[in-house]
């Protein structure tokens, strides 16, 4: 079973932007202030280019492991695959922390117990044990849900937004821009997320540029969201974590209609659950590719990986800020550098030949 190219485009346009709505906006506002759009614009442009590369790579219609094994042998392929797996697991941790904080803060009226987030891992363990191609059907469902949630929240928020707040352009200067780029690196690894999918969908003519354009379209919505976010909260944006769940709260109609914005918040939170589980899913399937030891291997790997992540999450329960500071601070370069290196090297070695198998 393979994914459809349409499903890949759905992911890039509608699912990928949702992963940037929780902590990125206030983190970015803290560094770039009213110039928060430009660092994200740069990140989106880079990711779109990398997505173009990954989709070009997929023209060979072989998995990453199969391509590596064919050229550098099984041992070399396993080493590179494990490196990619570790990278994906690393990228998966911060979205998990974000999700946990979101659930605890937004879905509960007072501070809940730590355990409330644990059911996520039951779902994640199940999801990750399934073949990657299954995610295509999930994206078919998630894409309209994401559009529904995003449209609703933006519709309820634009009336309260003072878009003049993003002026004057360049107030944060070069330090604001570079700081913003560095701070947001941890959220932009969508191109690397596609690597486990390489060889699992049929490449159709023009998919590479269509993918890049879809990602740019999703990015444009993300930029509009950020502008609205800053327009609503302006100088207090820095303290507005979980912004997407708060922006629509000021809509005047809610006093009459009740908190119907929760429909949109839940829709986006639902999409986020699957986006959060995706790096682990990719990692599990990459390992399963390299070790075809039976049909139960993905399930065992999935339980193991999610179990470890659950333990880490409990272990670092009160260290969200430290994790965030580390991932977006000193080692901010890890995600963009390793992600881009994997993609560009793979494209360099395997990108030219087409339909070789």
């Amino acid at each position: 079973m393979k994914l459809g190219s349409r499903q890949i485009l759905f992911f890039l346009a509608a699912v990928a932007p949702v992963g940037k709505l929780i902590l990125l906006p206030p983190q970015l506002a803290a560094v770039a202030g009213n110039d928060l759009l430009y660092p994200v614009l740069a990140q989106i442009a880079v990711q779109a280019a990398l997505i173009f590369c990954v989709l070009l790579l997929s023209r060979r219609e072989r998995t990453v492991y199969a391509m590596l094994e064919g050229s550098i042998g099984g041992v070399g392929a396993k080493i590179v695959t494990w490196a990619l797996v570790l990278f994906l697991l690393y990228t998966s941790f911060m979205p998990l922390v974000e999700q946990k904080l979101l659930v605890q803060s937004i879905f509960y009226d007072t501070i809940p117990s730590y355990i409330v987030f644990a059911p996520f891992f039951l779902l994640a363990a199940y999801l990750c044990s399934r073949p990657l191609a299954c995610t295509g059907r999930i994206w078919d469902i998630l894409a309209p849900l994401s559009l529904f949630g995003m449209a609703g929240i933006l519709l309820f928020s634009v009336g309260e937004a003072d878009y003049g707040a993003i002026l004057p352009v360049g107030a944060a200067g070069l330090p604001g821009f570079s700081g913003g780029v560095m701070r947001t690196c941890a959220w932009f690894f969508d191109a690397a997320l596609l690597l486990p999918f390489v060889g699992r969908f049929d490449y159709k003519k023009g998919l590479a540029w269509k993918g890049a354009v879809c990602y740019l379209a999703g990015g444009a919505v993300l930029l509009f969201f950020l502008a609205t976010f800053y327009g609503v909260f302006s100088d207090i944006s820095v303290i507005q974590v979980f912004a997407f769940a708060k922006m629509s709260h000021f809509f005047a109609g809610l006093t009459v209609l009740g908190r119907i914005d929760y429909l949109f918040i839940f829709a986006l939170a639902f999409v986020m659950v699957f986006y959060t589980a995706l790096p682990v899913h990719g990692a599990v399937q990459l390992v399963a590719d390299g070790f075809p030891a039976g049909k139960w291997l993905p399930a065992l790997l999935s339980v193991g990986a999610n179990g470890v992540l659950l333990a880490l999450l409990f272990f670092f329960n009160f260290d969200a800020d430290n994790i965030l500071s580390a991932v977006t601070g000193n080692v901010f370069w890890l995600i963009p550098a390793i992600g881009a290196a994997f993609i560009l090297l793979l494209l360099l070695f395997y990108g030219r030949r087409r339909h070789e198998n």
Partner: protein
Amino acid sequence: MKIKRFLAALPGKLCLLIVAAVILIFFSNDFGLVDIQKTAIVLAVGIDRDGEDFALTAQIAVPKGSDRTTGGTSSVEIEGRGATVPDCIADIYAKTGWVPKLVFCNLVLLGESAVQADVFSCLDFFLRNEYIPNSCQLAACEGSAGEMLSSQSAIDDTSALALSKLFSDAAKKSGYVMTTTLREFAVGYYGVSGSGYMPYVRAQTKEGGSGGADSSGGGTGSSGDSEESGAQEQKVYSAEETAIFSGGRLAAVLPREQTFAFSLLEGNVYTGSFQADGQTYVVLKNSGSVGLELSDVPMATLSLELRVQLYGTREASPPEEIAKSMLTPEQEARAEEVLTGYLSDLWDSCVQTGCDLFELRTKLYRTSLAEYGKWKDSILSAAVKIETSVKSVS
């Protein structure tokens, strides 16, 4: 054969069920279960300062009976004291065993003592706490906020609900109430203008109303003591004045007329009325703006454009005039003159108190960083041009 097929499909179906159950648990919000015996649903809080310390009065909703005669919401007020606002909350918890649930808190009332110092020493907690909505209304009041909340309203069993009526959208459209939320006030405070406003509430004793509303259903009246409640004076609240703030401190209290002028500038007014020379005019269309021109020196422009109708006079009028309700050119000119006077007084109040109510610094900042650096300190003393246009509509 059918059983075999069923058993073969069972793991998939089971997985689907488990997934559905997990999603349900994940998004359940504890199925909305709240132990009402241990939870206090706070409707409003009043904050006063006592020297360096704070006194926070929480108005807690107490459900009354569900039958027709006793239905509704009653309340009880509990005061907590402490060195910080969260200390006061902890004090309430310690005194009552109730966990104050602030997610439904829609009003933060600041007493006179609280607004003399930087109000964000009181509001800081509300910004930090993720479980308090930033959309809650802010208001300042004369005297003690605790006493105001504990007073017996003549129109509602619960003072917070009576006050919230004053801050409704309909009241805002009248032009005599300028409401603000915690978010809006914080944006103004932390922005380059460093200014803000909130309605200023006064309570008047209702004439002949010392009997008190029978709000003691269930044994808990507004003061928490039904006998005392019976003897308490009934109060009528008004919020037609506006407290303006600079640097978080109370700068001035704008009278009713200036509040109306400010509402007009914000374009809030619809079917609000004002009076000039014994004639009352109703505003049917209101557009207002504050502009800033930067030529050699900055110049502010306050512009109002109104479409009004004659709403009432002190003398009897012929039916033809009543039917048209038009203003004569003289009346239009007089209405413009009156409103220009209000705007002029409003501008003077802001200049004298150093309150950047019209966000001139923000406008300057957004226009140009260089101009902002040049004029930010003197912008409040810029020249002002007031343009008022009142046109009659039949």
